[in-house]
């Protein structure tokens, strides 16, 4: 199977990536090769197979009491922000 450049651009937009034209070309080829290999899965009849939706299947879920506990303070939480206003994260304008 072969991914078109248009499809690569559509996926990049969904993934919030801005690819260079060279990257678009390269990924179209490489992703197509990988997806070709993935087609191997089509050999298998999995209609009656349950998906493995949890890697700890069979384990009793480890639940904790639903109690209030200390977390990061607002000051610590914003300490690494690229831009902040007080204890808020500052982002560029959302609505143009």
């Amino acid at each position, binding site marked *: 199977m072969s991914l078109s450049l248009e499809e690569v651009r559509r996926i990049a937009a969904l993934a919030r990536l801005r690819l260079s034209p060279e990257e678009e070309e390269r990924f179209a080829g490489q992703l197509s090769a990988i997806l070709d290999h993935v087609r191997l899965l089509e050999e298998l009849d999995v209609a009656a197979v349950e998906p493995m939706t949890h890697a700890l299947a069979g384990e009793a879920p*480890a639940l904790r009491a639903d109690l209030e506990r200390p977390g990061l303070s607002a000051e610590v*939480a914003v300490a690494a922000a690229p831009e902040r206003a007080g204890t808020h994260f500052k982002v560029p304008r959302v609505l143009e």
Partner: protein
Amino acid sequence: MTATSGSELAALSARQAGAQIAAREVSSRELTEAALGRIARLDGRLGAFLAVTADRALAAAREADARAARGGRLSELDGVPLAVKDLFLTRGVPTTAGSRILEGWLPPCDATAVERLEAAGAVLLGKLNLDEFAMGSSTENSAYKPCRNPWDLTRTPGGSSGGSAAAVAARLAHGALGTDTGGSIREPAAFCGVVGVKPTYGRVSRFGVVAFASSLDQVGPLARTVEDAALLLGAVAGHDPRDMTSSARPVGDYLAGLEDGARGLRIGVPREWLGDGLEPGTLAAVRAALEAYQRLGATLVEVSLPHSRYGIAAYYIIAPAEASSNLARYDGVRFGLRAGAGGGLREMYAETRQEGFGPEVKRRIMLGTYALSSGYYDAYYLRAQKVRTLVRRDLDQAFERCDLVAGPVAPGVAFRLGERVEDPLRMYLADVFTITANLAALPALSVPCGRDAATGLPVGLQLVGRPFDEATLLRAARALEREVGTFPAPEVA
């Protein structure tokens, strides 16, 4: 015998180092200085460390020595110099995940595994090199620098925990932590001639470990000896209320049965794992290890894992799908890099991610986003999860007839830097043997089993066990280690 010179100190296993501290034959400060000295001398060539925390390490060593002096050591690891993959959060110490997008970030907390090592008194020397976000099998995807194999500097140490394996093999640290999503502990351990354990999914807390593929990621040790691996695993394993996927099962004493030998063990040998595609030197070393087990009184049982050949295809849907979701958090808002802030919000997201992520990370985000996108979910992700069930079922059936499964770790020895970077599919295909245990959520390890005749490079044997039966794997690995020995320090030149 007491170690005195720097290289003698560095050559001690973690357990030996701990015992010598306890006997007051050597101090943690001497061990730490010896390790830092070797890092300063050798790591320019190796590239195993992304950050060396010398001052913190020396301060921790002083505290360990004070505890040893007053007879209040915290554990066998108290005062022993170790290091962790730079995927573990360390409070106030830069944590990059090997990515530019986290350059300069100082985490607000420690990973639970790091906390546990420090609570055991271990001295942390620094943060180890890795493939960006643990995506890779060669450590060439590190955004900072490649890491080299201490046995041959033209070759990769494997990946993604390449820095961990190289540092342990080259005696820059007495042990290390890594993470394993598709083989990222076992493959580098095999390539560098050390022991690497990927525990059962849920055995070690992943709190504070940068997430890659959450249904597959697991934390584990890389060590010079099987005994050290058991000691380190025991130190970090166990339930953590901060990780909802961590198991509440009690942790066994991994050192207790370690010397019990291989007699009576039924070792399953998957017929699909010793066929075409293995380098002759790897096949020979693996066969020799299996014969050694027979001499030691184990029984070899032929088993079949018919779905293991589908593992790569299933894995390279599931892991990128989960990664595309996990890596959505790198958006230039709360931490890390921000670019393109002059435009609108969307512009900033796209610019930040374009600038901050390297090619392999982008490739996997693209692949995962595609697999999860509207109209493709059933064909890719759901189908891959069903195949995952089949892979696990194969193992469950094998374990009706054997106690553990043995085979190669990788199809060949450490490959050359640059050899596979332009061909991602070829790089992925080498994960075929390790991926099975991740998909099946089972414990697995790599233990050195000999050298490749043509190159002299280390070869690892992989052992895969029943859920939470790390003890049997370690016991079997130790039996082989007694036969074939451990690798000496490589001459890093």
